[in-house]
């Protein structure tokens, strides 16, 4: 029961951080993608199953809260969770280089997928999509710089929250 409550709290906190913090730090539509970082972190630490499910859940929540085509985020984050989960046992997930490489792969994959989706489904929303309008290179660098920091924070919570089995 406590785990469910903590999971729900984490879910709410992450959504709030994702939708509130960029309001203060977004510059030229470049924003930190905390949800993707969390999905990748979950996939690396808990495997592809947890990763893709987390991706789908958070993607769906993002779709609900955003004005983009419904389902696009769910699809992209599910794929990101799946890809990152595949590296679960093959790579040393505690190395910064590994984290950055996997994160960059996921970022590029989700970006290309979004471009493909917007090309296949022409919509007015396509013009408004942040990813398509932003400078992707800077977006990538910003998120790759933040990735080790976010992973460190999540590791810190994982180590110091022994009661939260969600992380174990």
């Amino acid at each position: 029961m406590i785990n469910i409550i903590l999971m729900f709290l984490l879910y709410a906190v992450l959504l709030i951080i994702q939708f509130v913090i960029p309001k203060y730090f977004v510059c030229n539509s470049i924003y930190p993608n905390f949800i993707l970082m969390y999905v990748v972190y979950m996939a690396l630490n808990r495997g592809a199953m947890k990763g893709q499910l987390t991706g789908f859940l958070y993607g769906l929540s993002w779709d609900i809260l955003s004005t983009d085509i419904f389902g696009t985020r769910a699809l992209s984050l599910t794929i990101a969770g799946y890809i990152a989960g595949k590296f679960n046992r093959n790579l040393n997930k505690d190395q910064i280089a590994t984290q950055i490489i996997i994160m960059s792969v996921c970022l590029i994959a989700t970006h290309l997928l979004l471009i493909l989706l917007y090309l296949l489904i022409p919509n007015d929303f396509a013009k408004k999509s942040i990813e398509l309008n932003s400078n992707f290179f800077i977006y990538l660098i910003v998120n790759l710089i933040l990735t080790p920091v976010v992973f460190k924070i999540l590791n810190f919570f994982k180590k110091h929250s022994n009661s939260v089995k969600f992380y174990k």
Partner: protein
Amino acid sequence: MKNNNNKAVNKVFFILILLSLLLILARISQPVTILRNLTYHFLIPGIHFTSNSFSSSNKFITNMSNIFRVYQENIILREQIVLLTEQLRDYQSVLEENIKLKNLLLLQPPKKTKLLFATIIIREPDHWYKWLIINKGQNCGIKKDMPVVTIMRDNKMCVIGKTAEVYDSTAKIALITNSLFAVPVQIKNADIDCLIEGTDSRYLKLFHVPQSSKLNINDEIVTGPLSSVFSSNIPIGQISEITKTTYDDYAEILVLPYVQKQRIYEVAVIMPAEESK
């Protein structure tokens, strides 16, 4: 076991992908709006809290930067205050000096005067350039050392002398040409202060003229502000002769008073308006 796990992962992945694609293709805008509103309803307090926290943090950072800016500004303003205080002190001293000087100038406030016309009753040939007697005296309010003028043809006043002795119904006027007579004067349009003295002749002599000053024939001489008898700027006469030494210094400057250019039968005593009877 591992293969089974992978298969399960792949199956779930395909199901999730299919589900996502179905959601994309379904274009379910209306139910999503309801869901969005519901989610926002639950997340709003948290969003508000986080937003307020960040706003407060931003305000705190802004305030801190403002404090630093204000501190720097304060230093600059303090320096300016010191500078301005010095300037204010200077200004105060100048103001005090100005007040003192004004007070000094106002020691003799301008008096209201009036002219008392009198007729010359005696002018002795032996003392032609020294004295004359008028038909008004103490009874008319005339006192000693009152300035006496005459009206010229162009209706301007010119100095004739001052009252030297006053009797009940007559007064003796010491003429400006009297050798005992001296009055501080100015050379008009030159702002040169000097002294003029009578010579018991038709000319007056100008003394204490600065050697650096440039005088010309026909320069007008008027009473100066240093005179205790006459008010300023009453015409006296014009320079008629300038004699210089071999060293180009002024040896003698003779002035022909206006009073000598016309016949005088009447004079006017300038007297204070409140003292007239």
